[in-house]
């Protein structure tokens, strides 16, 4: 029998991988989220929302049985198994295929900023609830769509202040082509090893030959000469087509955004197995986990009953905030201090200032309060505004003007 931790200790904690956020953290997050929303909107992407909880089956249907272990599951009163969404691509594919595409006109440009949840993440120190901001371009086949979302990804990172991020781009078809040349059993084992990124173990699992050579060089098939080197290794038609498609997309991205650092990385393997073509990730200036990831998933919408090509990406907002370490500009607070008999006047002064858009806290004289940029002292007969420039006595009707002047001198 399991000995449970005392309840007494539990209520002080939140579950592993979950966390509270302070006012400063929330402010920084909101600012980043607003900039991302604004960027998505400028590229013509419209924000949609889906429920945080869906049927367990929906995620398995979309992302394959492997996703089951990663879901945070719950059972409702009817015994129905539900799960919190682990990402937004499957819910948006469901939404698009079942509601938006039938009878509508494509292509769809959808955006989202939403918390997602994971049951158990591999590795310690990882969050189980985190925010993803991303887009899905649904109904657009071909390199122009991929170039658009990659350029948009770079623009979104720039908007939150990450000007030195580098984007790595690969193609799932290159690997599929290599695996197709292997005998069935070996292909399956190799795929499993590659999902674990266990390149050192390929030799034991794959018969020697050009395919093994190519698979082993995947981690180093990156950088400016990667496409040329990969050409020499790609014997399968699918691999060759993938390289041609990749070259076209890179050219397209370059047209959109010549200054963006884009690098070929044919060893890029994304965790979700619905990716069918171009895949990409972005890394910040420091080492660590990718800041964003995405790619093309042309077969996913068909699983929900309405085939359509699609491509998109998701930014890990928390990871971006970790890298940025930005202190948000807080709005200056005005303190309205009152003597007891001036309470009514004071809260009316506060209301006038708030209606004008200022942040105001009304407090009794002497009470502890926030650090204020400017203080309005309200007595039964006097109103005095004190700021960096000194003290000014004023009439009720002029308080707003005097406070604004006081705040401006401070700036």
């Amino acid at each position, binding site marked *: 029998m399991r000995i449970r931790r005392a309840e007494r200790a539990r209520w002080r904690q939140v579950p592993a991988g979950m966390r509270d956020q302070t006012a400063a953290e929330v402010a920084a997050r909101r600012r980043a989220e607003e900039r991302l929303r604004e960027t998505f909107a400028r590229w013509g992407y419209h924000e949609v929302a889906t429920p945080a909880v869906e049927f367990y089956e929906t995620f398995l249907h979309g992302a394959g049985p492997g996703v089951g272990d990663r879901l945070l599951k719950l059972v409702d009163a009817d015994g129905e198994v539900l799960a919190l969404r682990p990402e937004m691509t499957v819910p948006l594919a469901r939404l698009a295929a079942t509601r938006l595409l039938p009878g509508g006109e494509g292509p769809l440009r959808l955006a989202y900023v939403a918390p997602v949840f994971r049951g158990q993440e591999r590795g310690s120190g990882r969050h189980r609830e985190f925010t993803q901001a991303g887009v899905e371009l649904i109904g657009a086949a071909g390199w122009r769509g991929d170039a658009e979302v990659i350029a948009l990804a770079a623009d979104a990172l720039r908007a939150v202040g990450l000007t030195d991020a580098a984007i790595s781009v690969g193609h799932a078809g290159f690997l599929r082509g290599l695996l197709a040349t292997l005998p069935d059993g070996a292909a399956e084992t190799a795929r499993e090893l590659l999902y674990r*990124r266990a390149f050192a173990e390929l030799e034991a699992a794959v018969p020697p030959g050009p395919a093994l050579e190519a698979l082993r060089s995947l981690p180093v098939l990156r950088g400016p000469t990667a496409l040329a080197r990969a050409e020499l290794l790609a014997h399968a038609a699918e691999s060759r087509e993938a390289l041609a498609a990749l070259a076209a997309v890179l050219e397209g991205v370059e047209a959109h955004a010549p200054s963006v650092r884009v690098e070929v990385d044919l060893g890029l393997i994304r965790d979700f197995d619905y990716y069918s073509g171009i895949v990409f990730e972005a890394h910040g200036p420091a080492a660590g986990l990718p800041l964003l990831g995405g790619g093309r998933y042309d077969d996913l919408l068909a699983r929900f009953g309405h085939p359509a090509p699609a491509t998109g990406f998701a930014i890990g907002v928390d990871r971006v905030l970790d890298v940025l370490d930005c202190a948000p500009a807080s709005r200056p607070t005005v303190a309205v201090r009152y003597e007891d008999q001036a309470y009514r006047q004071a809260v009316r002064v506060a209301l006038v200032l708030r209606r004008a858009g200022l942040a105001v806290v009304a407090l009794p004289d002497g009470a502890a309060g926030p650090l204020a940029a400017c203080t309005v002292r309200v007595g039964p007969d006097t109103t005095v505004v004190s700021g960096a420039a000194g003290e000014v006595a004023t009439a009720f009707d002029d308080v707003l003007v005097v406070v604004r002047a006081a705040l401006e001198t401070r700036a």
Partner: protein
Amino acid sequence: MSPLTVAVPTGRLLHDAVRLLERAGLHARGLGDDRRLLVDLEGGARVLLARPTDLLTYVEQGAADVGIVGRDMLLEQGRDVYELLDLGFGACRAVVALPEERAEQLWRPGHALRVATKYPRLTARYFEQVARPAEIVVLYGSVELAPLVGLADGIVDLVMTGRTLRENRLREVAEIAQSTARLVVNRSSLSRSRRTAELVATVRALCVQEAGRAGG
């Protein structure tokens, strides 16, 4: 440019890991002889000493660019790092071992074994694969003790020579996995850090050399 950081495991792989780094041109001699956990090397590289169970966390999260770790840890922890090279040293096997005199009786199909181990995920996966019922007792220290005192029927643990098993009157009944030391690399370091790529290339060349010598 941040310095190249290499994570080296304390314990049984330390000696060979330091020797490998020496041969790769990182002068790490004497590492582990004192209590320093983070050691700056000549030429802007540094080495951090981590427990084998923690090492993959440092590499996955980017606190280290490169690490040396047993395959057993990779199988147990399933982290998001690139496992690039088999370094050849630190060979051992993960096995199921049962008390000598009761091994046959306990290992009969359908018997629900109680197994003590430091590798709960690896163990659970194995018993799922061979479709044998098992209950896992997670321990952090010497698991051989568990069957001696009735805490478990048997153990899943690493063996090198088999001496510890013999001394504790345990017999191997199944091999779960083979392990050697591996070179692992942080995903973004591989693309963003030139020095990481150079170290990987150097170590790869050393491994090929070694294999050639062993083969010839």
